[in-house]
């Protein structure tokens, strides 16, 4: 696209001096962005830089304190998302916005229902959705319940939702975070098609190579302000990252192997029945040795959560689990934790934290029966607070104090607290599920360092991550999980994310290499 054509067309979106303050935080400060029509415009920035807030403002979910928004050259002011929908803006949110108990069709038409004699015209809706899906290559079954869909399908439903409303400007907030490379490629293919049809896409991602791959223009946001607008052909991923944070990029590479031949965790023939005939876990077996990090790769929903929860004793499963030679498969979650299993859950807000409790109480969580939290039947407040202070120091948790409520911390700091907590009490085995998901680069590096150090000290780790670079960089061995089965054991030193993605999606048939 040449500079001349750009100049003659009115920009699709112009944001001028957008400022948004939250109590205590300026999320956006004098933001200026111009998005040309028919392009994919990427916005990058650290966690908490203010990307989502900006997009919510553009979508009418939040009102800016200052600044103007122009869409296709005319100034607009949105009170609600419907106003934004009206002028052709649609948004796919960072977290899925779907009603699980509704069908795909219901989710799509909600808020823009076709009517006939006052009733919902499902026939017309179905026809329109199938049409849209066909033209854009977004295949979905309109009558399926959303709760039965995988992430990729849900993503497509989200995009269809937006297209169904006739949006010409699409906002995608971190759409690739939960997708495997093949799915990402599929998504990008869809985006390119949309672009070819003249739609404008605003795209947010932390994965910079993806950004460079798809974007026609990039805006970098740091601490709520636009710091640079660059052309993807002019920068490398590394330069882009440095623009975002102003510091060196860390890499998750393991240095030398510390794997010993002492088995810490042995999982044998683990099977978990699902509804009907399907097995959620099917004969899963593996060993993790002292000082070893075993990475589990897999598309979300292939049994990772079930595997973790079975090992933690949260969900019942058949089979044997041994910790340091002891059969723990009949033990309660509590006993498993007491005997040295640490657990960094995949969703920190759901399973990891008491958001409305103080940091020190969150330190106690999961350690109720152990020192320093325990003192007979009592909770030892003094010792717990002291130990929380230690975590805050050692793990660089940015907080005013240990009495602060957990919800006042940013995501990265919450995660560091959880990592610190789970590393306390000398675990022999740690489950780390997406330990750096949604965490910015600085915190990411710190968490990786902690994992590596603990591994060097003999910790066995089960690492589950959607970030394949992280998985390849940290693991000593990688197992691929597909439909509840371990289908391949791979050596991280000679695997690429693409090949790994092939195994994860079943595109490459499972072979036992190593």
């Amino acid at each position, binding site marked *: 696209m040449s500079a001349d054509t750009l100049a003659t067309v009115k920009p699709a979106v112009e944001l001028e001096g957008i400022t948004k303050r939250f*109590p*205590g935080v300026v999320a956006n400060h004098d933001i200026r962005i111009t998005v040309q029509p028919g392009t994919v415009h990427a916005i990058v920035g650290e966690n908490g830089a203010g990307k989502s807030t900006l997009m919510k403002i553009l979508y009418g979910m939040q009102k800016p304190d200052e600044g103007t928004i122009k869409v296709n050259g005319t100034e607009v002011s949105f009170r609600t998302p419907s106003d934004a929908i009206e002028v052709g803006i649609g948004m796919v949110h960072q977290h899925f916005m779907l009603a699980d108990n509704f069908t795909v069709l219901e989710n799509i038409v909600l808020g823009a229902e076709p009517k006939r004699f006052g009733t919902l015209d499902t026939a017309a809706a179905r026809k329109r959705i199938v049409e849209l899906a066909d033209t854009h290559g977004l295949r979905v079954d309109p009558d399926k319940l959303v709760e039965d869909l995988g992430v990729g399908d849900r993503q497509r439903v989200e995009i269809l939702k937006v297209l169904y409303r006739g949006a010409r400007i699409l906002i995608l907030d971190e759409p690739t975070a939960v997708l495997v490379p093949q799915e990402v490629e599929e998504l990008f293919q869809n985006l390119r098609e949309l672009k070819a049809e003249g739609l404008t896409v605003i795209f947010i991602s932390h994965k910079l190579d993806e950004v460079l791959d798809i974007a026609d223009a990039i805006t970098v946001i740091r601490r709520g*302000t636009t710091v640079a607008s660059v052309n993807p052909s002019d920068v490398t991923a590394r330069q882009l990252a440095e623009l975002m944070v102003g510091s060196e990029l860390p890499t998750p590479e393991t240095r030398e192997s510390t794997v010993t031949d002492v088995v810490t965790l042995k999982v044998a023939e683990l099977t978990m029945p699902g509804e009907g005939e399907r097995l959620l876990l099917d004969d899963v077996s593996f060993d993790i040795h002292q000082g070893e990090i075993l990475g589990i790769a897999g598309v979300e929903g292939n049994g990772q959560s079930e595997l973790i929860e079975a090992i933690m004793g949260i969900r019942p499963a058949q089979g044997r689990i041994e910790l340091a030679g002891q059969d723990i498969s009949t033990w309660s979650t509590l006993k498993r934790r007491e005997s040295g299993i640490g657990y960094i859950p995949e969703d920190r807000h*759901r399973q*990891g934290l008491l958001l*409305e409790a103080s940091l020190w109480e969150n330190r106690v969580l999961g350690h109720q029966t152990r020192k320093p939290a325990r003192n007979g039947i009592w*909770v030892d407040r003094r010792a717990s607070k002291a130990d929380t202070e230690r975590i805050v120091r050692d793990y660089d948790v940015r907080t005013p104090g240990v009495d602060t409520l957990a919800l006042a911390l940013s995501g990265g700091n919450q995660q560091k607290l959880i990592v610190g907590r789970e590393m306390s009490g000398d675990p022999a085995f740690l489950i780390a599920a997406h330990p750096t998901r949604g965490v910015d680069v600085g915190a990411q590096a710190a968490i990786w360092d902690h994992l590596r150090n603990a591994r060097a000290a003999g910790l066995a780790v089960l690492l589950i991550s959607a970030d394949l670079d992280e998985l390849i960089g940290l693991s000593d061995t990688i197992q691929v999980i597909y439909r509840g089965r371990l289908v391949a054991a791979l050596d991280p030193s000679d695997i690429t994310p693409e090949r790994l993605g092939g195994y994860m999606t079943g595109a490459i048939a499972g072979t036992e290499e190593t």
Partner: protein
Amino acid sequence: MPAGLNRALLTVAGAVVAVILAIAICSVAIIIAGGEPLTALTALFDFGEAARAQSNSIATFLNRAVPLFIAGLAVAVGFRMNLFNIGVEGQYRIAAICAAYVGSTFTAPAPLQITVIIVVAALVGGLYALIPAVMKVTRGVNEVISTIMLNYIAINLAAFLVRGPFAGQRAEGELTVSTPKLPDSAMFPDLNFLFEGFGFLPPTRGGGLWGFLIVAIVLGVAIWVVLERTRFGFNIKASGLNSPAALASGVNPKKMVISAMVLSGAIAGLIGLPEILGDRGAYNSNFTAGLGFLGIAVALLGRNKPVGIAIAALLFAFLDRAQGALQFADIPPSVITIIQGTIVLLVVVANEVTNRIALRLEERRAAQQLGRNTPVEVNA
């Protein structure tokens, strides 16, 4: 801790505003009814002329607060972990009749006799609460419905027991059915000496201050300690704030449901005892009903914390006491119920608002101390 103090101050301010608003709303109602709001207000504080009337009024006020407080505690234990024990009503009835009956079957030295009665009441209340708990953990039955159903069942069961197996002797022409009279050693010593201590005329027994007040205070402190300082209390709090997180931390949700429900039921079992051991000396068909439902309001008003519940119980009791006084002032006593309902509603609204303000402040403070609120200067 200034943040905590701030919050407490905000809460109190909110509550005060709410109470004042509630009184204002009810004043309007009183004016519509053709009454004088000021008269009504004085009636609230009118504890009588004579010294004896005053001590009677104080005793009435405190005696009413005691069961309300216990009921609030019982409800709160469940509510703290999002377990809605609507069944306190049924639990205390069954517990009261069983305790009254068991207590009447033997005579022992007072401390022993009273202890046995209290233990039986707690046991029966706990056991009755075990039913919905077991139904919930084994079959997933929603405790709201099961406890509502069990309330009706308890009422009928109590009616059956008091007329049938547990019926006591009655004087000719006496129509109230009742369990056998408790021996004197079962009656809880009253606290009327306190009045003398404060220079009031002591009321006579029956109209006096029930000794069970002491048990209630001890119970309140014990529950506070359990909830705020022990591991069990921590687990309850964790389960209430975030049950998946509690589960992942090793808290067994089934065990928690059962133990919290049983604890709640055991406390509920004591609700009827102040009345039985302080005044009636038996369970009969006039036994005060509805305390379980009021307990819900009291617990919620007190934000499920013992101190708050105590304040809420005292407030409710204070208002209830005025029912007679209001009638002397020719004002419909039902304004009390309206005031109570309005206060509950307004206080929780105020709570919500102040809570939000407090969280905001806390976030802002955290952000300020971390210096996150200053955007970086950018050299483009």
